[in-house]
């Protein structure tokens, strides 16, 4: 069997997402159809030389904006979404050591 409960859990785990039994089943039940649908892409012949389209507008030219000094965002505004801080310092999870 190509698709298993373990495979689905593994794919979710790589994105740091946990699935309940029901959620896993929801995906697993549909994976065969999803895979069949994906195969429709491979039915288009002679596409190896087609340039993959990664952006909508082919005629688009990126322009770097000029290097001008701008006002930064006031700290008070940024702290509005932070539940645990002391003054300007935000409490973050311990990562090192």
């Amino acid at each position, binding site marked *: 069997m190509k698709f298993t409960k373990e495979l689905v859990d593994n794919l979710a785990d790589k994105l740091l997402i*946990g699935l309940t039994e029901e959620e896993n089943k*929801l995906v697993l039940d549909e994976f065969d159809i999803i895979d069949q649908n994906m195969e429709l892409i491979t039915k288009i012949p002679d596409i190896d030389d087609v340039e993959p389209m990664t952006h*909508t507008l082919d005629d*688009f030219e990126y322009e770097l*904006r000029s290097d001008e000094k701008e006002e930064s965002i006031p700290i008070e505004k940024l702290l509005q979404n932070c539940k645990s801080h002391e003054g300007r310092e935000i409490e973050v999870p311990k990562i090192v050591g």
Partner: protein
Amino acid sequence: MMYMNKTIEELHDLLINDKVTPEELVDESLKLSKEVQDKCNAFVTIIDKPKIMPVSENMLSGIPFGIKDNYSTEGILSTGSSNTLKDYVPFYTATAVQNLEKCGAIAINKTALDEFGMGGTGTTCHTGTVRNPWNLKRMCAGSSSGSAAAVAAGVYPFALGSDTGDSIRKPAAYCGIVGYKPTYGMISRYGLFPFASSLDHCGCLTRSVKDAAIVVDAMKGIDKNDQTSWDSSNMHLYESIDGKVKGKKLFYIKNVVDLDYYQNPTDEFVSHINNFHKTIEILEKCGVTVEGIEIDRNLLNAIPSVYVCLSCAEATSNMSNLTGIIFGPRGNGENINEMMKDHRTKGFSPLIKRRFVIGSYILQKENQEKYFVNAQRVRRLIVDKMKELFKTYDGLIMPVGTGIAPFLDNPKDSVSNDDVSVLEEHLQIGNFGGFPSITIPDGFIDDMPVGINITGNCYDDINVLNIAYALEREMPYKNQIAKEVEK
């Protein structure tokens, strides 16, 4: 007197002649918001005290409007209809919203959507299901569900939407209103929560084509904060609409639209297709040539899969920043990975998790070339085919979906391998190519509205709007307000 059932043009006329004040319009819109919230559950937030703006020569000054909740609004809750951002209050406003506010438009509420725009039913909002104001047992489609419901119910003349696959244009059809997404990059995406960046478009829902032009005229413009935006200052959409369409040429995809290609179609499906052909006749009477052309079925069949592949893969990457560390409620755990996983596990709904798992599958090393890169190649083939046809034709005209809004207890938001999937999903072509695309209402089946869509080549927005306007003028559905029917 009721005002919110009027068009922007009519309201501006009343405002400028002192027949009504912005305060009166805001009061009415707030009252209607509460009524529509009770019936349709269309909003995440109704703004307590909207900032009243003075009336000026600008057509949008003093006009109430709604904002889809995946646009950042400074100081106002912006959730993307997701539990991962249920308390998020941004410190900046999206450029498109800012541009409208500069014109004097007044934000009334934030509308509910399928979580982060990743759905087509309006059933995956963290605040619950959005119901169709024409029939509360039916869906609005999505993801701009709340915006479509509110505009159709007459809460205000326009609301913002976003469109990655058909998220403006299909809800517009199911709710009997206008949904327009202009050429990719005409409106800055700065401040729009990203879903699939190469397919995401900003746009609007209105009840008339001219109103859609007025709104996008205001929203658009090059923005230093969105490198994909471009200068459209020489394009004046509203002023350019003249309804002169004699000699224009449109095509429809014959092997998707003709009934001969379907075995055992339902009565509803037959009515929908017949209604499309009746609408074509109206256009032909205006001097427009409409031709059915065939496109390689393999290429057409691949459209929904290319969309699923690219959108899920891009979304998986875009939403990797939703960790509960830099915003959103922080998860529990012994270390940072556990905390992020806890946040994401609890925050995302089952349907969005499904899309993430598909994205994860597609992006696995062994699948990348086979699925992801090949989907990008097929995307180009589809777009090239359209661009070739746009050399001969002014645009593509197609029915939206396969019929009327489905009942909520029978949603279609699951993968499908049936033969109607191309008709159901063809609006995705507009996102593949960044094409300007508009849906307008073109009739009723079983007392529920249906829509027709016109899509043109990049930068040809004026042509697309003009054809839509000419058609709208010949039909009785302009500025219709939802009349609740029980069935």
